[in-house]
């Protein structure tokens, strides 16, 4: 226990700037793992605040926002070192966070409080607060920044909200426990149907399901390759990652990813896929050329959001 105590106290020391920093949020430990991407070692584990789940870069790329759902705050972190720069309190239960493509709106979904908050991104001032059916979860934006689409996990549906007015445009059932949602280049939505083994392609105009594509049990989240040539789907129950052709949505291959893969990120050179393994307190590093598991990195409990910083 003493070692644990000592570790908890000493890890609060800020780390120096690093190349290829990887940051992982340990949602059950209230901590942030700072990992060296090049030698795949955890350098430090820093207390960050309550229930950190997701993280994203600010539109200008200067800060990494860590959303502390339990702490009701955003923490602005140096993306290259993991050093904490400032905290923005009074952001209620920011479980998932997202900026609209035009960087005008900042949206938070609160799966604990069952609501969606739409902020004016310039000053993080609240524009609209919407009460939702249970567990609003992931989000995707229309390319023109007019609408946000949010999965409502406990009511098996997706809701479309007009960002400027805060009005709900439609709510449609899409399948059991929908989670991740992503806008395809063709302008349709794809949704990970976690309570089943498929993703659903959804029409953003009215929310009707166009078709379903089988990926793996517990289809959860999406990550598109930067070159637009592949779409990755994590399957939480099957512990696999499906690789899809984004144009046709057909499954090209399936990769094993132990530990219930959740969020994903690419290594800066694009040759590796890093995925958080929620159930095993580890990060999986997968070689994209071969699909082989190159290694696992032990981190804190229930690792969720992951960010890989490119060398600057």
């Amino acid at each position: 226990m003493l070692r644990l105590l000592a570790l908890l106290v000493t890890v609060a020391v800020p780390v120096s700037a690093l190349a290829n920093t990887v940051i992982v949020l340990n949602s059950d430990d209230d901590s942030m793992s700072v990992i060296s991407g090049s030698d795949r070692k955890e350098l430090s584990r820093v207390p960050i605040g309550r229930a950190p789940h997701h993280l994203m870069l600010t539109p200008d790329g200067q800060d990494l926002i860590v959303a502390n759902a339990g702490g009701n705050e955003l923490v602005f972190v140096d993306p290259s070192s993991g050093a904490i720069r400032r905290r923005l309190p009074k952001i209620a239960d920011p479980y998932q966070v997202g900026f609209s493509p035009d960087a005008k709106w900042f949206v938070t979904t609160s799966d604990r409080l069952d609501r969606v908050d739409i902020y004016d991104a310039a000053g993080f001032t609240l524009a609209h607060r919407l009460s939702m059916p249970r567990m609003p979860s992931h989000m995707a934006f229309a390319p023109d920044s007019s609408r946000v689409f949010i999965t409502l996990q406990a009511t098996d549906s997706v809701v479309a909200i007009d960002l400027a007015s805060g009005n709900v445009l439609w709510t449609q059932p899409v399948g059991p426990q929908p989670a991740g949602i992503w806008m395809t280049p063709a302008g349709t939505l794809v949704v990970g149907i976690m309570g089943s083994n498929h993703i659903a392609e959804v029409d953003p105009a009215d929310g009707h399901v166009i078709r379903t594509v089988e990926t793996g049990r517990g289809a959860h989240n999406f990550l598109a390759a930067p070159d637009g040539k592949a779409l990755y789907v994590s399957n939480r129950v099957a512990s696999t990652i499906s690789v899809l052709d984004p144009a046709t949505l057909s499954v090209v291959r399936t990769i094993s990813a132990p530990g219930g893969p959740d969020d994903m990120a690419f290594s800066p050179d694009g040759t590796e896929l890093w995925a958080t393994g929620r159930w095993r307190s580890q990060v999986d590093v997968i070689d994209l050329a071969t699909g082989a598991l190159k290694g696992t990195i032990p981190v804190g409990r229930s690792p969720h959001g992951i960010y890989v910083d490119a060398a600057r």
Partner: protein
Amino acid sequence: MIDDLLHRLGLLQGWIFETAILPLLYAFGLMDYADDVFDWMWVMMFGGVAVIVAYLVCRPLELWRPVEPRGDRKAIRTDVTYTLVHRLGLIPLIVFVILAPAGYAIDRALMFRGIMPEAIDQYVPALADWPLVTLAIYIVILDFAEYWRHRLQHRLRWWWALHSLHHDQRQMTLWTDDRNHILDDVLQSVWLGAIALLIGVEPAQFPVIIILLRLVESLSHANVRLGFGRVGSWFLVSPQFHRVHHSLDHAGPPFDRAGGCNFAVILPLWDMIFGTYKPDRSFPPTGIRSKTARWAGLGYLQHQIEGFRRLFRALKPRRRSPGPVVEPGE
């Protein structure tokens, strides 16, 4: 070593979850609860670890310097049943099914109106980087709350009716701590849960608190001739300190003022501050005078029924009488 052990325990949990629990949640359409079930499974595993740690620490001490021989094994078996049923099953269930959703509902109602309850480490931002100091503050606050809950258990007639089950035991061992009526456990969970919500204890911090409380409480009930001396008695409840609380002379009615003493759970300081400390260095026999050893030897279910019977009697309207206070259950 400890962090390595915790990591391995986490891997074991992950393996059980992935192979046995998650497929079930998936099959029954309960994937919404996957994260919650995963978290609470950890709390339950910690409960199990806490029991094992307490046993490994206390049992050798009991063998080393017992206060009294282990005579009534049937009564001890009842206490072991209490530990297994309540600690590993009922209490996590109460917290998971009743308290957590209630807490969420309150949070939801408050926060929709823009009221955002802040946790202690948010009032004092410097604490955010010192999780252990925050944890220590939480433990002191919760222990203070436990002191007063315990005082009320002895003060209020109906609550003593339930709590007297705990004091029936004449053969105190490391297992005795869990001998509590189920209603008493529900009350404790609500009490601690409400305070934890108020001061903002993060559920993830509970496992450490559970293990610490568990160890101190098991040790304080252990059958071991052990005191912590004049100085130590200021800081931690010892088996000797708590044995005086359980003594035949102090546990009975009329409740906490006339004779009751040493109510603290972890920090004896509360008894010293509020005038209930008894600087007695003896190891007296324990139990309630009016209750023979037979009561302690009842099986688990019989004992629970007996608790309801005592509660019913305590709640029954009494005729006004100038005579002495009659203990419920007699």
